[in-house]
């Protein structure tokens, strides 16, 4: 990793950032060779911005887009699942094409177009061969601005979501995650499943779906990342053609900030399976918190580091209690969280949760060791290029950086943020972040051995 950092820094010196009026170039990490990756800020004549990484190695193009404040959190009272259902329907007929015609067009041109609602945002993915690029963008424009919501596809997708909800009820993992959010956010949209409930999905109408498109999909909350076989000039034109017809701003929205509400407790949902699934967590740090990078280090050492984390060592490697255990920071827009999960046989649940609490407390009290801090830093810095596995993956990273306001030079600076975390920072932030007394767990299964104190 140290050598890789050196490569990156060499790149940076060789190709310094150049700022242009509409097209800002920033050199990213990467190869000390001619094809160094650059991020360009492209702004169209109408003012639509996209970040672009030109990559001519293949005749393909990937676009990732996020509409902020357009996820399930915006579902109105009684209309849970609205954003998710729109996600299933935007490529099911638009403009003068019915669902079958639209889907056939996508398939025949090998255009991959997908939509998905998360808790906070609505995501768009497009991948196309260069030769079909203009048509792919035209189809995307139609999907975003002229979706039809014909009765037949609406009923079909409704039935598919209902079948999915039924399937979720047979999966202990999904039940546990859902129950955790339900118990922690009883009075907030985060407490309701992204997919909605059987009742709310049954009640959604085509007008509800149209209202979502009109109110939530706008230029003002749109974030774009594009990677592949296109230059800035061509992209500028496509941006206006594709997104120019969207409303300027989304409708006003008022989502309350929220924190996990329920007191620390172990909540059991009885379910007839041989292994219990445990989901646990408490408040985390928001993405713009100055301590976020130190929190990343602490999380990595405690439970985020795959095979090398303390929890994995104690729970899996030493005791064989589980196939895996992991934690992650999840900075939702309105509630930063730190969450984790583990699955263990029913009669070992108590022991597993006890270990979890002990490790939580030990990290809070002592922080990572110097060796752990070094290992975490080198991993978090060095593993970053491993994410860049495809044009879509790079495009997704470009949108994530914009979403969190990290700056166009983030990729270049990221290592320095992580390397700046000192042992004192890590200890201080471990104490700030980790609150064993706030740790709330949901157990789905038929657990035994839970200590009375834990309940």
């Amino acid at each position: 990793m140290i050598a890789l950092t050196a490569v990156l820094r060499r790149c940076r010196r060789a190709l310094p950032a150049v700022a242009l009026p509409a097209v800002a170039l920033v050199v990213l990490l990467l190869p000390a060779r001619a094809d160094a990756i650059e991020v360009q800020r492209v702004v169209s004549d109408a003012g639509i911005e996209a970040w672009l990484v030109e990559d001519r190695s293949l005749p393909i193009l990937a676009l990732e887009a996020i509409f902020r404040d357009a996820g399930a959190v915006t579902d109105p009272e009684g209309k849970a699942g609205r954003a998710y259902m729109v996600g299933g329907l935007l490529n099911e007929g638009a403009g003068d094409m019915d669902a079958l015609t639209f889907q056939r067009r996508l398939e025949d041109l090998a255009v991959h177009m997908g939509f998905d609602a998360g808790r906070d945002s609505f995501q768009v993915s497009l991948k196309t061969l260069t030769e079909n690029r203009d048509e792919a963008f035209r189809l995307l424009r139609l999907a975003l601005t002229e979706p039809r919501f014909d009765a037949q596809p609406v009923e079909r997708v409704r039935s598919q979501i209902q079948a999915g909800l039924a399937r979720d009820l047979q999966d202990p993992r999904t039940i546990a995650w859902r129950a955790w959010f339900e118990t922690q956010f009883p009075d907030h949209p985060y407490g309701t499943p992204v997919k909605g409930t059987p009742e709310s999905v049954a009640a959604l109408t085509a007008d509800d779906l149209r209202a979502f498109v009109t109110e939530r999909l706008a230029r003002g909350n749109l974030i774009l990342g594009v990677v592949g076989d296109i230059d800035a000039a061509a992209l500028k034109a496509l941006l206006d053609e594709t997104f120019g017809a969207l409303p300027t701003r989304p409708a006003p929205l008022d989502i309350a900030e929220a924190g996990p509400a329920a007191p620390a407790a172990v909540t059991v949902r009885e379910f007839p399976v041989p292994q219990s699934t445990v989901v646990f967590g408490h408040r985390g740090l928001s993405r713009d918190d100055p301590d976020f990078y130190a929190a990343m280090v602490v999380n990595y050492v405690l439970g985020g580091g795959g095979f090398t984390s303390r929890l994995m060592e104690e729970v899996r490697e030493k005791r064989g209690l589980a196939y895996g255990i992991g934690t992650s920071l999840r900075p939702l827009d309105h509630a930063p969280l730190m969450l984790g999960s583990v699955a263990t046989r029913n009669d070992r649940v108590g022991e597993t949760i006890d270990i979890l609490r002990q490790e939580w407390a030990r990290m809070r009290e002592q922080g990572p060791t110097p060796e752990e801090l070094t290992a975490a830093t080198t991993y978090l810095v060095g593993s970053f290029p491993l994410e860049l596995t495809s044009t879509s993956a790079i495009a997704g990273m470009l949108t994530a950086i914009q979403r969190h306001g990290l700056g166009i030079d983030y990729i270049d600076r990221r290592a320095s943020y992580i390397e700046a975390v000192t042992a004192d920072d890590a200890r201080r932030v471990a104490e700030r972040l980790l609150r064993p007394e706030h740790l709330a767990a949901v157990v789905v299964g038929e657990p035994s051995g839970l200590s009375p104190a834990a309940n």
Partner: protein
Amino acid sequence: MNIVLARLLAPILVLGVLAAPAAARAEVYGAETFTLDNGMQVVVVSNHRVPVVTHMVWYRVGAADEPPGHTGMAHLLEHLMFKGTEEVAPGEFSRRVAEIGGRDNAFTSHDFTAYYQTVAKQHLDMVMRMEADRMTNLLFEDEHVRTERQVVLEERRQRTDNNPSALLGERANAVMFHNHPYRTPVIGWAGEVATLERDTLMAFYRRHYAPDNAILVVSGDVTTDEVRALAEEHYGPIPARQVAARARPVEPEPVVERRVVLRHPQVQQPSWSRRYLAPTYTTGASEHAHALEVLSEVIGGGTTSQLYRRLVVEEELAAGAGAGYSPEQLDYGTFYVWASPRPGVDMEALEAAVTDELEAIRRNGVDAAEVERAKTRLRANVIYARDSTSRGAFALGRALTTGSTVEDVETWPESIAAVTPEDVDAAARAVLAEHRAVTALLLPRPQDVAADDQEALR
């Protein structure tokens, strides 16, 4: 939630997976291959987008090579491969890879066991040294076996015992094969996993882990010359063991229709599926293999496919429907069709419609224009496969451990292009016969019935 749960286990027969092109061609991956003096084949797939490499070693051994009564052995051994050598302490392998910002893992199927690391290119030497070391110098103790058996049993509960759909798939598979070891689950039967011992595991390791039974695949920002030099240095000195070619029990020609039903209190969403015994790229009536890939795409490859249109769109009986085919198996393949009912639709009605459609396909064949569309899609997707920095390594490793060659992988688009509508019809007639198939139903079981059964047992 990004929780890494690893030493993952490859799905047993790639059932229900869309008919993705399992492989692509030389112009796609640009694979180059050579063989070391000790018989270890080496494959290099260059992709210079980011300064990262994926280093994989694939062994030609999997769950179908386990001795009787020792199911789960190949997979448990895969876990134990992380327990160290003289040079590398238990758990140290993954720790060292993480310390250089890399990732590592492993997976097991019926036909292969594979280990991989993805690292910055300058660390290829280091991971290759460690991988070569554990090819011959593995050490593990009874206590490691005891702990890791528990880990695997938790893995089994998580994947299978807690999941009625997976449980049914496992049992349908056991009914599918009368004699061939594809009948056993890769993860093993719980009662046998619990009794696996150090000495038999070590003997299994010594018998199968050798350079002449392994394939090195390196993809990413690297050249063939660089890989050759490193491979000769690290793997070159390991002596061959003259590992015998695999000879497995032979499956008799299928003659009986089979049906398995799981009524489970956990089930909320029923489903119907049927798996047919099918040829592969290299075994059985392999001339049908590419036509079966096209057939799978035509009848079940997406939302405009024949099954989806009829069952989901037109008759409004199903919430979903599709087909899949796994041609990359060493001995036998599976052609798979599935459907799940819309809420309120009963299973008999759905099953009647699916079987009616399958019979129509078998009898009347498929639409020639749809064959052309499917072929176009399959070939267009090859270019996307090339976009991924690691997919080529997976495709080639899988091909080479299941009887195919690099050349087969490279000529895949031509093979698909050559498929005619008549070929597809002939493949459908050859494979879509009920006596070749196991039909599996996943159904709910009302809680009170389950309680009555419990009562009756007492």
